[in-house]
């Protein structure tokens, strides 16, 4: 059987050899061990020998040709032998057979698949694979500049001591074992916030569901806008003090606000309206609701016909309804039918906030606390009382100017409380 003589590895570094000389020509007889050619490698000119006896049937490369390592140089065989199958491909001997080809393709495909699968690559990371599991300390990033001995770091971690709170006594301020042992947590500073051990899922009450639904509908269903005024409450404070000094009923500032709103609503009926989709309803009566905080949420009992009730009555009714609300004794007719709502967080020290409109009202007034602040009066700094109120309005019903006028009306009434008593 004919044998291909391919370019031998004649030096440990050669990649190709140049045929320097052929000692044989096609048709020559050779013995095993005969020098058939000389080849220039990257190092020297080397002899190429025949390892098998036979006749040179074919010479592929001419003198001067470069042949890659393993490339065909010649064919040795029996004279007259059919070597056509050796003449085709350059390295037919080493080519994979056809049966092998699909396997190779499959391998490639599966490799591609592997690459597409996210995360898989990480599993194979030879350098960092597995390290994540051991937990790279977040600490090291945080205290990267804190010098501490490995032991001190470990002790601090075990004892929950923040290394940044520890003073190091070692060279260059290194925190060492002794420093951790002698460390005392500062008394005033609570030790690391103790969280509830487990999150708690609380069932949603009917009230909460209702609040959630109504307020979400309001906030996202009606376009809110907000306007705030800062009201001088000095006179209201004085008036209330005077009124409470004489009577049995204790009137609150909120009662003043409710009364002022009711009176202002009468002046600005557009604000006392409801959006009905095709139409807007102007309410004939003024029913101001007051937001009352209860355990599970808030209720808005209604002071009916607020505008025609006096401060004393408003105050008394509000107290009664609030009490019922807290005792869960409020009846549906007592919280239904409001045309406007007042929400007051002044007793919590809130300066100002925005409230979500209580549907189907057009507006809600959010009332802040009365602050003692220096004010300039007649060029002099004097103590003053101020209260911020913010009106949330449904832009579908009222416009900015309308609500501004309404707010100014409220302000005028509160700044001149005597007008409310008339």
């Amino acid at each position, binding site marked *: 059987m004919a044998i291909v003589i391919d370019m031998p*590895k004649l030096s*440990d570094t050669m990649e190709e050899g140049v045929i320097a000389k052929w000692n044989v020509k096609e048709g020559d007889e050779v013995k095993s061990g005969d020098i058939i050619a000389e080849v220039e490698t990257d190092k*020297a000119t080397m002899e190429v020998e025949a390892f098998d006896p036979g006749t040179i049937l074919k010479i592929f490369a001419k003198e001067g040709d470069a042949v890659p390592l393993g490339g065909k140089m010649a064919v040795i065989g029996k004279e007259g032998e059919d070597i056509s199958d050796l003449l085709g491909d350059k390295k037919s001997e080493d080519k994979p057979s056809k049966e092998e080809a699909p396997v190779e393709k499959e391998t490639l495909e599966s490799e591609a698949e592997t690459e597409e699968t996210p995360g898989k690559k990480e599993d194979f990371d030879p350098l960092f694979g597995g390290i994540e599991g051991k937990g790279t300390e977040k600490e090291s990033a945080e205290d990267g500049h804190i010098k501490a001995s490995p032991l001190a770091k470990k002790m601090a971690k075990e004892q929950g001591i923040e290394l940044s709170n520890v003073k190091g006594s070692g060279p260059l301020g290194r925190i060492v074992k002794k420093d951790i042992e002698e460390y005392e947590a500062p008394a005033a500073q609570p030790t690391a916030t103790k969280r509830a051990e487990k999150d708690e899922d609380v069932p949603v009450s009917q009230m909460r569901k209702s609040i959630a639904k109504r307020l979400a509908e309001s906030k996202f269903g009606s376009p809110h806008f907000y306007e705030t005024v800062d009201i001088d409450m000095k006179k209201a404070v004085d008036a209330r003090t005077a009124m409470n000094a004489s009577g049995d009923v204790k009137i609150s500032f909120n009662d003043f606000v409710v009364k002022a709103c009711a009176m202002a609503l009468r002046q600005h009926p557009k604000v006392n309206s409801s959006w009905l989709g095709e139409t807007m309803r102007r309410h004939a009566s003024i029913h101001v609701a007051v937001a009352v905080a209860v355990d599970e949420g808030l209720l808005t009992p209604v002071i009916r016909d607020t505008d025609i009730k006096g401060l004393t009555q408003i105050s008394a009714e509000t107290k009664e309804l609030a009490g019922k609300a807290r005792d869960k004794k409020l009846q549906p007719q007592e919280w239904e039918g409001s045309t406007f709502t007042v929400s007051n967080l002044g007793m919590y020290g809130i300066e100002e906030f925005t409230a979500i409109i209580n549907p189907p009202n057009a507006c809600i007034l959010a009332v802040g606390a009365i602050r003692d602040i220096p004010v300039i009066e007649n060029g002099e700094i004097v103590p003053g009382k101020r209260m911020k109120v913010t009106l949330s309005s449904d832009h579908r019903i009222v416009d900015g100017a309308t609500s501004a006028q309404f707010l100014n009306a409220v302000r005028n009434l509160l700044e001149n409380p005597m007008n409310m008593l008339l």
Partner: protein
Amino acid sequence: MGNETEVAGFTPTGAVYKSTKLPKPTRKTHKSLGIKEDELLGLYECMYRQRRFEERAAQMYQKGKFGGFLHLYIGQEALSSGLNYALNDDDDIITAYRDHGMGLARGISAKAGMAELFGKASGCSNGKGGSMHFFDVKNHFWGGHAIVGAHVPLGGGIALANKMRNEEKVTVCLFGDGAVDQGSLNESLNLAQLWKLPVIYVIENNGYSMGTAVQRHSAGELVDRALPYGMKHDVISGMDLLTVIDKFRDVAEEVRKDSMPWLIEVRTYRYRGHSMSDPANYRSKEELQEFKSYDPIERLKTYILERDLFDEKKLDEINGNIDEEILEAIDFAENSDFPDDEELYKHIYADDDFPYLR
């Protein structure tokens, strides 16, 4: 046959024109040496096996089947074959890195040898030695050794152990002409003579220490290293099988009897370069051609045919069988497994549980 070649030496320009000269071969015949005819055939086969093994090894190396160094013995086969014939089976042999021929002659199979070249677990050193470290200790072949001259004291030590146990065994320690220049050789000769060790030191003078001709690397005659120690010595031709057998049989018996060392310079010639990447430009084509004309295998073939001991057909049959044996060895090597990964940590210490640093 039987011609002494012209005297080796330098040209007027200082270039070496011949690296070594061959002493006259023995005039004895196989009959007078008591070699049976079928033994002669066995010796032919032994030499041809080494030759064909290495030719194919070179081919496999050039095909990139294995890496590392490959130093070929081709041309020197008469020494390994004749020496092995002359020695008892339990005599000890240690040699240098050009060790395939001696190993095969001593009993390493072509399969185990080829597998060792391929670095396979089935090799004669479990794939851990490679070309330069063929071992077959059960056949008293103590290996090929790769630091020039470093194994020369080992040969003396093997002989020392035999002597201490009063075993009548001979140790043969072979090394190249380059090793003669090492201190280890001179220290070993001193100790061997001083302690009367049963060892035969053999200089395989193939003309070149790598690429440096003998005249250019060693002052005086190599064998004269024996003189200051009063050691018995001789120079013989290593291109003639019968000469090798004749000399070594006599010397081995003498050493076995009186436990005194010998130094024998065997003049021979390697046809190939020092290693596979050596084009051997330091010598002339004429010199190579001349020594090839004394080829030990061709010589024995001529000897056999001239005396009608066997016909050419018989020798061709042997060649054919060996060719087949070597191809089978290549198949065996190719199809053998590489050593298991765990083998990396085996056979370093005598204990298998050594706590290696990791």
